[in-house]
């Protein structure tokens, strides 16, 4: 069964997808494999979850897609746009701030 992740994971799939697509264009299945690999399987999404995120990002202009036929199968490849790169930078900075804040709070709680 696909492992579910806690509710505070909201927004993480978007960040990971943008980060991975910043390196090269990929299709859905390839992206899920890359997320598992990049996070050492710490983050294992229900695999269908990425498509609503991908389509939303495409709709708001952060991604663009194109179809390619590979080994007799039509793949939809996603690539980052300029707007997507800007969005990635913003999310990355937000994430660092939150991560730092949580780490500080947890450290303080441990030392108290």
């Amino acid at each position: 069964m696909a492992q579910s992740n806690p509710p505070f994971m909201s927004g993480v799939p978007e960040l990971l997808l943008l980060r991975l697509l910043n390196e090269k264009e990929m299709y859905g299945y390839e992206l899920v494999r890359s997320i598992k690999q990049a996070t050492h399987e710490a983050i294992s999404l229900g695999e269908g979850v990425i498509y609503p995120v991908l389509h939303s990002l495409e709709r708001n202009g952060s991604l663009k897609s194109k179809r390619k036929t590979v080994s007799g199968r039509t793949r939809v490849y996603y690539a980052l746009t300029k707007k997507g790169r800007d969005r990635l930078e913003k999310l990355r900075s937000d994430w660092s701030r939150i991560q730092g804040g949580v780490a500080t709070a947890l450290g303080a709680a441990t030392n108290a």
Partner: protein
Amino acid sequence: MREPDFNALATRLIESGISPRHARRTVNELRDHYDDLVDAAVDNGANSKAARLHAANELGPMDEFVGQMASRRELKTWAFRYPQVAIVVYPIACLAVLPAMPVLVGFAKRSALMRWGASLLAAGLVTAVLLLTMQLSIILG
């Protein structure tokens, strides 16, 4: 978990407000993803049935998928995004288009209409020739 019913999924997506074109594309992507998962499981030694079950599990519940698609407003058609506007605009649009309907239908069915017109013309010509022949036979005795 059961194998996903992709046709039913497309219907459910459309019912939840996703445009038919987008729903078809989504289902095609998901079906390809499922096929990739099945292939990977078979490559890892699973039999066909076990591979399909594994793929369905990995893909996650379809209810959850439909829920996530439906929760994203930007993926919905404008009528689902602005239902109040749609309630007003659709009837007005229908009334506005009503007078033009014969023309639009005529354009859409132009080939049938042209065939019908041509056969009517041919029938008229034959009738005219017959009437003319009768008239001539009366005149000439």
